[in-house]
């Protein structure tokens, strides 16, 4: 065999081939070494990009029902994240600095002796012009101001008194949620981290944070971006200003179940209307009941009520409607294991009329898969 003769029988050939292979290996290692920094940087960029993709998917399924698919917020439900306010863009920064410069020059001209009246007049004219353009900017932001935006205090974190970075603000908010936000939003933001009994792992929270921070446009935020925001953050000064109530008389959050059933007997539920209400931003049911890791899922509710809940001894004498009505109005009276108590808002009684409650129950009855 040729190979035997060439390679295996001649010691000098063996030594030569072995040495050349070793040298070639070392050359390749050197080549990899030269490219290693670039490769690591490329991997990092690629990993961050894919992290944003995963974050986008997580946002779509977990966050968009409250914060909006476009991140612009939902009125009366949750604030915008895709917002110049979130990222602290100051629309007045440029004109303010121009005003400060002219003011300094004006002050210097006023202090000089003898005063140069022409120069002072010039500065005053510039000042008036700048003030006018500042006022015009603020006027353009008018609709946002009406929604609670303050152009003079454009940095969310500064207004909150948050001393760390925006990244840590987003991440820690995801970890712990907003435990007291049910005081000024219809429902509290739940804790999302597994370390806080939520459904998401640390790396998923990182992905979400990367996605949310990717909304930052830096210096390219326009006033149109500001005007697109549907809901600005609410600072809990006066809870009364944010109550979104039904026009019909509400069921009442403290009404006993027997009285509720009596009230329900006068109305007929419409499953279509119930479904609309259920999926609506005002009630926000799907915000939680879409993900079995967070709350009992919508699908199959009626089957579970019939087959599992009503067989429990504490629901002896209950009908399915009664169980559902109680679960909506007094959510903490019975908690389906293993879900935590106190997560579902207990103010639906004050936000729903009997008709709406009946609609919701009718919709639930269609969930008999």
């Amino acid at each position, binding site marked *: *065999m040729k190979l035997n003769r060439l390679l*295996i029988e001649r010691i000098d050939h063996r030594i030569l081939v*072995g040495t050349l292979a*070793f040298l070639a290996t070392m050359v*390749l*290692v050197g080549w*990899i070494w030269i490219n290693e920094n670039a*490769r690591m940087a490329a991997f990092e*960029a690629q990993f*961050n990009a894919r992290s944003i993709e995963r974050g986008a998917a997580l946002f779509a399924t977990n966050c968009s029902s409250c914060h909006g698919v476009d991140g612009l917020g939902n009125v009366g439900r949750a604030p915008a994240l895709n917002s110049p306010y979130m990222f602290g863009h100051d629309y007045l920064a440029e004109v303010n600095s121009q005003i400060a410069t002219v003011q300094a020059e004006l002050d210097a001209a006023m202090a000089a002796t003898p005063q140069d009246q022409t120069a002072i007049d010039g500065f005053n004219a510039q000042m008036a012009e700048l003030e006018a353009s500042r006022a015009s900017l603020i006027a353009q932001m008018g609709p946002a101001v009406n929604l609670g935006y303050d152009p003079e205090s454009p940095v969310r974190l500064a207004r909150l008194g948050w001393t760390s970075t925006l990244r840590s603000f987003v991440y820690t908010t995801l970890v712990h949620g907003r435990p007291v936000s049910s005081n000024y939003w219809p429902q509290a933001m739940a804790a999302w981290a597994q370390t806080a009994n939520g459904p998401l792992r640390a790396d998923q929270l990182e992905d979400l944070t990367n996605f949310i921070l990717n909304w930052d446009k830096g210096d390219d935020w326009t006033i149109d971006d500001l005007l697109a925001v549907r809901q600005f953050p609410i600072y809990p000064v006066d809870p009364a200003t944010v109550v979104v109530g039904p026009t019909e008389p509400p069921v009442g959050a403290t009404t006993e179940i027997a009285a509720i059933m009596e009230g329900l007997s006068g109305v007929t539920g419409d499953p279509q209307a119930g479904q609309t209400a259920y999926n609506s931003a005002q009630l926000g049911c799907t915000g939680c009941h879409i993900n079995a890791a967070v709350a009992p899922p919508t699908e199959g509710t009626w089957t579970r009520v019939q087959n599992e809940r009503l067989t429990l001894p504490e629901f002896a004498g209950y009908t399915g409607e009664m169980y559902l009505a109680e679960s909506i109005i007094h959510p903490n009276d019975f908690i389906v294991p293993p879900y935590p108590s106190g997560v579902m808002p207990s103010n639906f009684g004050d936000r729903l009329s009997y008709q709406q409650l009946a609609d919701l129950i009718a919709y639930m009855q269609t969930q008999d898969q």
Partner: protein
Amino acid sequence: MSVLPFPSFLDDVKEKGFKRAALEGVNEIVERATAGMNVQDIREALRGEAASRKPNPRLQPHADGFWLHMRPSYFHKSVTGLYPEFRLGWLSTYFVFFLTITGIFLMVWYTPSPDVAYANMINIMSNVPFGQFMRDLHRLGAEAMVIIVFLHMLRTFFTGSYKKPRQFTWFTGVILLICTMFLSFSGYLLPWDQLALWAVTIGASMVEATPPEVVGTNVNLLLRGGPDIGANGLLRFYLLHVLAVPAILFIFTGVHYYKVIIHGHSLPPGEENIGEDTAKRVPLDKRVYFIPDILTSEIMWISVTTLILVILVTWFFHAPLEAHADSQVTPLGTTAPWYFLWIQGALKLGDKVLWGIVFPTVVIIFLMVMPYLDVTKSRRFADRRAAFSVAFVLLSLLVYLSYMGLPEFGVSTSADSEILHHMLMEPAHNHMGVLRPIPFDQLVPGVYTTRQFHTDDYDGDIGTALASFQDGIPPEQNDAILFFLQNTNHLPINALNFTAVPADAPELLEGLRRLDEELEANHAELPNAWGAIIITEPQNNLKRVDVLLVWDDVQIENGEPVLDENGEPVFILDENGQRQIRYNGQYMFINRNSQYFAAPGA
């Protein structure tokens, strides 16, 4: 005069001069380090000359040194060529050391905890110089070792080298094969990505089937450290991978080598009389000494093997790293590692206990006792036709069972899920969704449909075809589709305004065409189907690609559409006698910097 009880180096220098004293000192150190060969001996050996002094110093390292006492001091000339050994045993041993070294490098950067293991991987890939290189070498080396060890076993079988007196050597070899496969398998879990979690979940779930139930449950608990693989399971697999199994492997490697010294390398079957074993009686003129011939040969083989591995990981192979392990998300088409596909294939034959536990156990036991069962004396090919035939049948069976283990075989997923997966899947098993590698700039926002290829009725005019298709969708169906997209898929679009794919997006057009072809190919299960690709741009440098499938619902039984006597699918009708319309959709996000590239050959 030295204060020491023997002459010091300085005394030597005084007596012989510095140069001579230094050279003699070096010579002595070399002779001690090699356990018997001085500089001159080594020089002669490497030049291919005969030893110039007696007793032959080249035998000394075998007698006095640790490393070479495990190797015979000479081989029979007939076993030093490429045939019959192909150096497979030596290469297997080399891989043990190769994987130990690369493994130690990786160990330095790794913590066996589900909280950080994946982050460690990312760190190795993005922040550790040569991190990816070492990981690739370790992974490729592991797969190569499985192949090499298996080939080594095949070679031993075909040359009949397992026969008396080498039965026990074969037995230890089977143990080494099992260790190799288990090492490769346990390493799968450590990156804690989806591939890891699900490959190992499949493997470990077979253990659970061990009868009786009390044994299966408890062995499973012992291995996984809980009902599911979690922190305990990861730690256990890690310790098995880096400590327990390597310990067994090293011990049995020693036994295996010792047996080779005791029995010698078996000669090619044709060179001995039947029933004779002359490996230990090598005539003087047939001897090839380990030093220098075998040693240089072995070093050459490992140099070349290393070079091949380095070339492969530089340009052709990168160890896969999928998304973070998630026990809530089962990827479509999960498989065991390729060398366990035969078990996965066997599992599809039926009973989990029979095919998942009994069958592999029988295979292993059969392999172990095979030399004790096959007591025929002849090692010649011509006398072993029956054994060879059985072996080839078993090998074919192995290949076929492995083929059956592939997800393509015998696992029915509904056609719509299969198509969506095929279009959008994240990179896994060297595949990725058809639409993923499309260049970012060609993902032009818009709503596109496969109906753009069906223009025969409109003289090939895409605009008219799309307009008439759009008008043909009943309003309630249009609303239902929009509701589906907005509520299930969270897609913020308010209308389906179909447009033709722009001319400067040829790869998007190609992707849409593939979607159309797949719908056509599944027309029995998805009759009257059309697909849409909807591209939006939710953020700077981030696009969202939705794939929507719409078809007429048909009866499905056991994953196959039910056909009537004319071979037509049976449609499901609603209460008004109209065909029921079904939708399914999936989406992915693509960032400008994600760099998805089509896998070679995909």
